[in-house]
C-alpha cells in the first residue's frame, strides 16, 4: 500500500472526527451559555478546539455569534467544521479508489451540499439543525466504513485516524475544565458547579451514559473516571487507546510483525489507562496528567506518520 494512501485515509478519518468533535463543542457551549457565563462557555469551546489563539487574533471579544462562526464556517480557521470538511474531501478524492462507495458518498455528498447551502446563514440562524446535519454526516461516514470496508490495512489506518483524533479531543475537553473537577473545587457544590460538570459530559454527549454507568448524581471524580478510564464509554481515553493499540497490532500482523515506536507508545498508553486509578490520577495532578496525555497523543501521531507514511 502506498504511504500516501495510508496518510490520506488516516487524515480523512481525523478530519471527519474533528468535524464531529467541534460540532459537539459548539452544541455544548450553546446549551450551557444560557446557564452560566456565556462568554466563559464559548471561551472554553474555543480553547478545547485549539482555536483560541486564532480567534483572539481575529476578534477582540468573545461573542456567541462570532465564536460559532469561527468554529463552524470560518475558512481562516484551519479547524473549523468547513475547513475540516474541505480537507477531508480533498484527501478522499486523492485516494478515491481506496474507499468504498458509501464512504465516498458520505464525504462527497456532504461536501457538495455544503457548497450548495449558505452555511454562514445556517450557522447564524439555524445552528442546532446545522450541527445535527454535521453529526449525521460524520455518523454516516463512521457507519459506512465500519459496515463496508474490508478489514485490511486501509481500514486499520482509517480507525487509527478516528480514535487518535477522538482521544486528543477528549483529553482537551477535560483539560479545559479540569479545575472544576478537582477535589479542592468541589467543596462549593452549588448549582453552578453541577452545570460545569454537566457541560463536560455534554461536550462528549455522555450525560446519559454517566447515569447508566454510575446511577448517581454527577460527582466530579466520576466525570473524570468516565472520560479517562471507563472502557465502556466510547469517547473515553481508555476506549480510544484500546482501539488504537488494536489497530496498530493488526497492522503489525498484516506486515509480518513489522513494528516500532508507534506500537511501543500506544501499548504503554493503553496499559497505563487499563491499570490506572482515578484517585491516583487526581492525587498526582489531573492537569499534569491530561497535559501529558495530549502531548503523548501528539507524539504518537507523529510516530505513526514517521513509521508508515514517509
Amino acid at each position, binding site marked *: 500500500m*502506498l504511504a500516501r494512501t495510508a496518510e490520506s485515509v488516516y487524515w480523512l478519518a481525523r478530519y471527519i472526527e474533528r468535524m464531529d468533535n467541534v460540532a459537539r463543542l459548539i452544541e455544548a457551549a450553546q446549551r450551557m451559555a444560557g446557564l452560566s457565563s456565556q462568554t466563559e462557555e464559548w471561551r472554553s469551546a474555543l480553547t478545547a478546539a485549539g482555536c483560541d489563539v486564532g480567534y483572539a487574533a481575529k476578534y477582540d471579544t468573545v461573542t456567541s455569534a462570532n465564536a460559532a462562526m469561527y468554529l463552524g464556517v470560518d475558512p481562516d480557521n484551519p479547524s473549523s467544521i468547513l475547513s475540516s470538511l474541505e480537507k477531508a474531501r480533498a484527501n478522499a478524492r*486523492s485516494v*478515491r*479508489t481506496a474507499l468504498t*462507495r458509501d464512504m465516498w458518498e458520505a464525504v462527497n455528498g456532504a461536501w457538495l451540499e455544503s457548497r450548495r447551502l449558505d452555511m454562514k446563514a445556517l450557522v447564524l440562524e439555524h445552528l442546532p439543525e446545522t450541527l445535527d446535519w454535521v453529526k449525521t454526516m460524520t455518523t454516516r461516514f463512521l457507519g459506512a466504513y465500519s459496515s463496508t470496508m474490508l478489514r485490511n490495512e486501509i481500514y486499520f489506518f482509517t480507525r487509527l485516524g478516528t480514535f487518535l483524533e477522538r482521544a486528543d479531543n477528549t483529553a482537551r475537553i477535560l483539560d479545559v475544565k479540569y479545575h472544576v473537577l478537582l477535589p479542592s473545587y468541589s467543596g462549593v457544590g452549588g448549582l453552578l458547579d453541577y452545570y460545569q460538570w454537566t457541560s463536560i459530559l455534554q461536550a462528549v454527549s455522555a450525560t446519559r451514559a454517566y447515569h447508566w454507568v454510575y446511577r448517581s448524581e454527577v460527582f466530579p471524580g466520576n466525570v473524570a473516571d468516565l472520560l479517562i478510564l471507563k472502557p465502556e464509554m466510547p469517547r473515553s481515553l481508555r476506549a480510544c487507546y484500546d482501539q488504537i493499540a488494536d489497530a496498530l497490532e493488526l497492522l503489525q500482523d498484516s506486515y509480518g510483525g513489522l513494528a516500532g515506536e508507534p506500537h511501543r507508545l500506544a501499548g504503554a498508553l493503553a496499559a497505563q489507562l487499563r491499570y490506572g486509578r482515578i484517585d491516583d490520577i487526581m492525587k498526582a495532578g489531573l492537569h499534569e496528567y491530561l497535559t501529558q496525555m495530549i502531548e503523548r497523543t501528539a507524539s504518537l501521531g507523529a510516530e505513526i506518520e514517521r513509521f508508515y507514511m514517509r
Partner: protein
Amino acid sequence: MFDEMRAEGGAVRPAYAMVDRWLKATPQAALDAKKKEAERLFRRIGITFAVYTEGGDPERLIPFDMIPRVLGADEWAILERGLKQRVRALNLFLKDIYGPAEILKAGIIPEALVFLNAAFQAHMQGLEVPNGVYTHVSGIDLVRTGPDEFFVLEDNCRTPSGVSYMLENRAVMMRLFPDLFEGGNIAPIQRYPETLLKTLRAAAPRRCNGDPTVVLLTPGPFNSAYYEHSFLADEMGVELVEGPDLRVQDGVVCMRTTRGLQRVDVIYRRIDDDFLDPLAFNPDSMLGVPGLMAAYRQGNVTIANAPGAGVADDKAVYRLVPDMIKFYLGEEPLLKNVPTWDCSKPDALSHVLDNLAELVVKEARGSGGYGMLVGPHATKAEIAAFAEKLKANPADYVAQPTLSLSTCPCFVESGVAPRHIDLRPFVLTAGEEIAVIPGGLTRVALREGSLVVNSSQGGGTKDTWVLRAPSQQQSQSQSQGQG
C-alpha cells in the same frame, strides 16, 4: 458521402444486418422506451465509472449513442494488419533515430524534422530499451470515406487516452442488450487491461528477475483523464502513483509504501515527457521524479511509452510514415495516409495558398485541434488572416484535403439519422508480439453535418463491434433432436 450501414439506395450492408434486425424488430415506441431505459441504465452504470470523476456527476461523461458501429471480419482483418505494420514501423523508426539514424542517412527523412523536433529527447540517444519497444501503447486515429477507403489521420505515440470509454461503452451495451452478444458474433474487448498489463510486464528491464512491479504514474486528481488512470490501475491491480510517491535511490526507482520503499520495474506513465524528471527535463516541474531518467538509462526501470516517442506522431513526420514502412519493412503500406502538403516546401505552399477554402491546415507540432483552419467552414476573412500566418511561418504548417468522413446511424431528436464518425483503435506492443484490441473508440459528431468529433464540441461515442469470422464463433450447444 459514405454511410457505413446503408449503401446508396438504402440496402443494408452485411455487417449491419444484426443491427438492422434489432432496430426493425423493436417498434418505435419500444425503441424510445429502450432508449430511456438505456439512459437510465447508462447513468447507473456510468456511476461506477463516474466515481472516479469530480462529484460522481454523470453529466461529465461524454454522450453515448446506443447504435453500435460495426466493422466486418474482413474489413477488420485488413485494418488489423495495417495497424500492426504501421506501429511496427513507428517503433523501428524510433529505435533508429535514437540509434544509428539510418533513415536520416538514407535521406528519406530530413534530419531537421527529427533533431529539431520539440519532441526529440537527446537523453534517449544511444539507449537500448527493452525489446526495442518505444511506443508500447499506440492510438492510431482512422477515418473512412468509402467501402475500402480507410485513412490514418493521426498517430498517437505519447500517452493516448480514451480506452476507458471503449471499455465502458461495451459494458453498457452488454448490460442493455445481452441478446445481441449471444452466440459470440462480436469480438470481445474486455481483456484490454489484462493485455495492457502483460505488455507492460514484458517491457520490464532485463535485470529485473521474476515478477516485475508495474505502476501507473498520473499527474493527479486534477488531470482531466484522472478517472481513466484510476480505472486502468484498478483494473490491472497496480498502484496508481503520483510523482512524490516515487523516489530514486542508488539508481533504483522505489515507491513509498507503508512497509517502506518498494522497487518499481515498469512505469506506465500518463504524464508528458517534460514532467517526468525535473533533473532531465523541466526543472520547474512539481510532478516529476528527480533521477528517474538516470535510473532509466541505467536499465533499472522502464518508462512506457518511452520518452521522446512523440517524434513518431509529429504531424510533419506523419507524412513520411509510408516511406518508413517501405524503408524498414520492405512492404507496401496497408493503411493510407491522408495526402499532406508540407508547407515548408515552396510548391506545396503555393498550392495550399491557392486552395485554402477546400483544405484543412494544421500546425505541424500542435495538438488538440488548436490553431487549425477548416477551409470549407471558414469565412473569407478568416481564410485571408490565416494565409498571412501561413506565409509568415510556412514550416509550422501542414495541409490536408477536407475528407468526407463516413457516417453511421445515431439516435437523434427526430429519430435515427446518420452522423459522421472516426475510430481510434489501440495497439499494444510487447516486443515482436503486437496486439490490436478488436474495435477501438468510435467518436461521433452528434451535431448534424459536423465533422468535429471532439467531446468538447458536441461529440459522443459509440460501442464499436468487430464481427468475428464464422470460424471464430462459438458453436451452439447441441440440442435434443439434432442428431
